């Protein structure tokens, strides 16, 4: 065991605190609106804090650190596209303002209002597949991380996953978004301390000069310059940046865990303000973990599994006695993400798939109590699936690209449908179906043959958006020719 008795006491105290504060708020959950979007009562600072907690998980640290470990300082360029996307959407209100004014609970709801229940069901299914495949690698990667940091033998990988997820499942299923926000507060205190401590302590402990020397020795010019050999040919060159900016704009509109935070905000103005300021925090969310990966080059060398670079670095540099607090901070990051993702992906399944089917068949909506029950059962189902997927799925290529591509299964379709649905009066149901379908084809190629097509990740990325636009224009034009009246549309 790498943890001392003091470390273990700190971790257990944290778990007890989270468990009780998460479950005690059950009394505030009076209906599905409180459960999913906390009664739309979240103000600016709390919204910002909760959004950060959702999007900073142990998995975030691992994939960003892997990028830094594999590409050196050049990987830091990856931190800028989200900043651009957040500030652009927050300042202009492009897409998000109309969405906030519609008072949605989930993004697919937009599809039934603008297009049809059939489109909502279709995007709900693709979203659930992409989202859950994305979420499905979290437990395996994180349990491995926990095992290395704590020194728990790898034979206990499954037990580690189950214990951690059960605690999260329990308080999320009981208190929904209210529990998530309350526990997020405690988790943010810990995770922000942990991130700052690792960054500052790491740089002083290892020495800036040693870090730079290790990167230059290992990667040369490429490790410093993201555009080496040229802006068009570089690993993080023009094509990559275009793809990442499009991806982030789309994620901020259609990534369920992020948009649910947006929908929980008090009003459109608060939602926009949360996005503008998130840009600044998202810069640090990427810069710090990438730097940890870069530090690992200097401390543990490059002859190891890249996903293990960060946990090995932490074991090497964090003094015993402080490891418990840092570990609790990492657990906090992990659990806050699990809680939000469980809530958001299960809400897509319960609201947009099961709910849509029930509405289509019975012509009636489920009552609030049944919706709550369905949401809670779905959560348990999602949890069982991701544990199973984590045990059997083998990762090929960089984790960052796998996560991007699973999201890309629905993200181009969502962005194009929402943007055209809001701003183009001639957008039609057939256009939405084709935009979603076309947008999913290229990322699917990456997920099926990752090794063969990994050199074309950027082209697949921005290409997904281009073909999705073609699908929307083509489908809407055809439908406008053969079925000109919008009123004539049916499910």
């Amino acid at each position, binding site marked *: 065991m790498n943890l001392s008795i003091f470390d273990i006491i700190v971790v257990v105290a944290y778990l007890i605190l989270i468990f009780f504060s998460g479950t005690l*708020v059950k*009394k*505030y959950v*009076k209906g599905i609106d*409180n459960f999913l979007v*906390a*009664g739309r*009562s*979240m*103000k*600016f*600072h*709390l919204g*910002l*804090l909760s959004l*950060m907690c959702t999007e900073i998980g142990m998995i975030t640290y691992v994939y960003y650190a892997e990028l830094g470990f594999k590409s050196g*300082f050049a990987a*830091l360029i990856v*931190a800028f596209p989200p900043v651009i996307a957040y500030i652009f959407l927050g300042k202009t209100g492009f897409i998000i303002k109309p969405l906030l004014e519609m008072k949605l609970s989930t993004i697919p709801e937009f599809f039934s209002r603008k297009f049809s229940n059939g489109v909502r069901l279709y995007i709900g299914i693709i979203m659930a597949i992409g989202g859950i495949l994305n979420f499905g690698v979290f437990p395996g990667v994180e349990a491995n991380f926990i095992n290395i940091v704590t020194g728990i033998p790898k034979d206990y990988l499954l037990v580690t996953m189950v214990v951690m997820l059960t605690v999260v499942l329990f308080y999320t299923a009981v208190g929904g978004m*209210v529990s998530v*926000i*309350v526990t997020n*507060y405690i988790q*943010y*205190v810990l995770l*922000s301390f942990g*991130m*700052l401590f690792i*960054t*500052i302590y790491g*740089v002083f402990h290892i020495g*800036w000069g040693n870090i*730079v020397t290790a990167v*230059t020795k290992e990667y040369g*010019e490429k490790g*410093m*310059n993201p555009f080496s050999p040229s802006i068009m040919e570089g690993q993080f060159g023009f094509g990559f940046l275009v793809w990442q900016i499009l991806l982030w704009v789309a994620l901020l509109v259609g990534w369920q865990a992020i948009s649910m935070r947006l929908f929980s905000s008090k009003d459109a103005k608060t939602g926009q303000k949360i996005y503008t*300021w998130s840009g*600044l*925090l998202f*810069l*640090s969310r990427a*810069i*710090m973990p990438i*730097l940890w990966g870069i530090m690992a080059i200097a401390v543990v060398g490059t002859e190891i599994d890249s996903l293990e670079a960060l946990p090995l670095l932490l074991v090497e540099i964090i003094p015993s006695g402080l490891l418990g607090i840092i570990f609790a901070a990492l657990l906090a990051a992990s659990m806050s993400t699990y809680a939000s993702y469980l809530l958001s992906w299960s809400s897509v399944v319960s609201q947009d798939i099961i709910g849509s089917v029930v509405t289509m068949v019975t012509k009636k909506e489920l009552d609030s109590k049944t919706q709550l029950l369905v949401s809670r059962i779905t959560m348990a189902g999602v949890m069982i699936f991701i544990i199973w997927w984590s045990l059997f799925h083998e990762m090929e290529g960089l984790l960052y690209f796998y996560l991007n591509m699973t999201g890309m299964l629905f993200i181009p379709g969502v962005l194009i449908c929402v943007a055209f649905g809001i701003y183009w009066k001639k957008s039609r149901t057939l256009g939405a179906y084709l935009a979603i379908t076309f947008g999913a084809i290229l990322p699917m190629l990456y997920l099926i043959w990752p090794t063969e097509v990994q050199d074309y990740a950027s082209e697949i990325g921005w290409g997904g958006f281009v073909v999705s636009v073609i699908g929307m224009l083509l489908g809407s034009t055809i439908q406008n020719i053969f079925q000109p009246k919008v009123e004539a549309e049916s499910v």
Partner: protein
Amino acid sequence: MKTGEYIWAAVIIFSTISFAYMSVKVIYKGLGELKEMLRNLGK
């Protein structure tokens, strides 16, 4: 190579300081908002 090193050092320092500042701010002001949210939900 040296220019790259300075640029990245500046980016890292800026992001660390801004993260520390924003974190203190959201933790301090977020507590009041959390209490208010729970009060409103409990009505």
